[in-house]
């Protein structure tokens, strides 16, 4: 078993004619959490969408656990062990909390996560399991989105903007649970606007600017100024 779980080589991606990722290459070790930082429009979400198979127009190679997945459909990729917690949560409005979680477990992959385990992580969801997902608060919706991703028992979880639109106290709660979420040796890519929080929660980081990697490495290895410069392109 190779040490590298996810390997990306020379990834380029387009929305229509607009090229949004330019020659992205990096590797992600098993069990590692990597933070993806960058300003709005830097290409962070596009990178995640490319990995999970939602970007139609892209070139380059993405391999996961030794298998090339860049040509695969999103519905196959989740079955191989990559779960996405999408930006804006994207819960299914006509499904209850529990149904949203059950749909997440649709692939039938075995592992530590089940309805019971998700309810132990987020007890409030058990109380509200029959509630329509739209009737929850933003923080609770984010818990459902995370739980739904975990239900597929992934090896790699992509967390896109966990804190978007949430109150600071809720963000704090969710980040306090992060070690439990990515325990069990789960590998994670964390996309976050809140740079300080993202860097504090990860072993590695990548800084993107206009679709290119401007800085990468361990967060402790760089000064604040160096990271700011890479982030803003100064």
């Amino acid at each position, binding site marked *: 078993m190779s040490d590298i779980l996810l390997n990306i080589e020379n990834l380029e991606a387009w929305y229509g004619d607009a090229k949004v990722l330019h020659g992205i290459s990096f590797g992600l070790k098993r069990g590692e959490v990597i933070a993806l930082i960058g300003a709005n429009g830097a290409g962070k979400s596009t990178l995640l969408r490319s990995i*999970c*198979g*939602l970007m139609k127009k892209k070139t380059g190679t993405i391999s996961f656990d030794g298998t090339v997945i860049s040509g695969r*459909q*999103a*519905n*196959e990729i*989740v*079955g191989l062990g990559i*779960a*996405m917690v*999408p930006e804006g949560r*994207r819960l*299914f*409005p*006509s*499904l209850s909390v529990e*149904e949203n979680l*059950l*749909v*997440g477990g*649709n*692939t039938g992959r075995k592992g530590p996560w089940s309805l019971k385990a998700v309810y132990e992580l987020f007890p409030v969801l058990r109380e509200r399991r029959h509630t*329509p997902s*739209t*009737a929850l608060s933003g923080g609770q919706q984010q818990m459902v989105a995370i739980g*739904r991703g975990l239900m*597929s028992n992934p090896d790699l979880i992509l967390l896109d903007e966990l804190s978007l639109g949430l109150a600071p106290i809720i963000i704090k709660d969710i980040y306090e649970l992060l070690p439990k979420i990515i325990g069990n040796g789960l590998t994670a890519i964390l996309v976050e606007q809140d740079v300080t929080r993202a860097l504090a929660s990860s072993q590695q980081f990548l800084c993107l600017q206009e679709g290119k990697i401007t800085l990468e490495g361990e967060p402790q290895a760089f000064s604040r100024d160096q990271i700011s410069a890479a982030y803003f392109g100064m």
Partner: protein
Amino acid sequence: MVWVNIIIQGILVGGLYALFAAGLSLIFGVMRLVNIAHGDLIVAAAFLSLAIVQASGINPLASLLIVVPLAMAFGYGLQRGILNRTLGKDILPPLLVTFGLSVILQNGLLELFTADSRKLNAGLIETASFPLLPGVAIGYLPLLQFAVAVIVIWGLQYLFYNTSLGRAFRATSDDPETALLMGLDQRKVYAWAMALCLGVVAIAGVFLGIRSNFDPFMGPGRLIFGFEAVIIGGLGNLWGTLLGGVVLGVAQAIGAQINPGWQLLAGHLVFLLVLAFRPRGLFPKVDG
């Protein structure tokens, strides 16, 4: 008592209209597809039953055991092979393609079975009845037809809200892209929905063929009844669709009693009134 009888007979016919409509409602709910060929598929199922009955001599009701699975397989293939390719942001391609399918089905049936009017013969059940009240006799066939409609609607409702396939239908209908991230391939989910729809279409077709004469060109009329029942009942609500069928059936029965020429007109008028005053239907789905 005459009017009680008329209303009861209208309600029972409404069951058949609900069967016409349930598949339309299901398909629209899952994939926002308006299937113009729906009525022709109902008629095609009646002809398929006729062919099986003629070849084997079995009762048309027994032919359901063959017609339903064949129709479901056809529906699955139709969706995978043709209709999935037409779905997208533009609503025109599926309309055009199903319109084309309607023309092909009508002409195909004409070629195979000629323009003669046919009927499925189910035997004694067609005329047998029991007295409910003085002057009100309930036919076993209309009662069976209504009971089957209730069971079909209940079954679809159960499937939608209590099974993993139902969750897949609703999740894909809500947000196909996110459903893909859960491993739900919309092409397959839609194909299963169409298979189920055609299963219901097959049941509707066989009951239609037992109840009245049919010919290759009566599909569009059944499509209109189906549409009217769906819209009277309220889009996206299967029990509403059953009630929509009943409202249509009762309106037609009352119209026919006043003047035989008014049967269809009365149904269309009720439909127009609902569209004018309750455009979301009498029993719209509660959002959220």
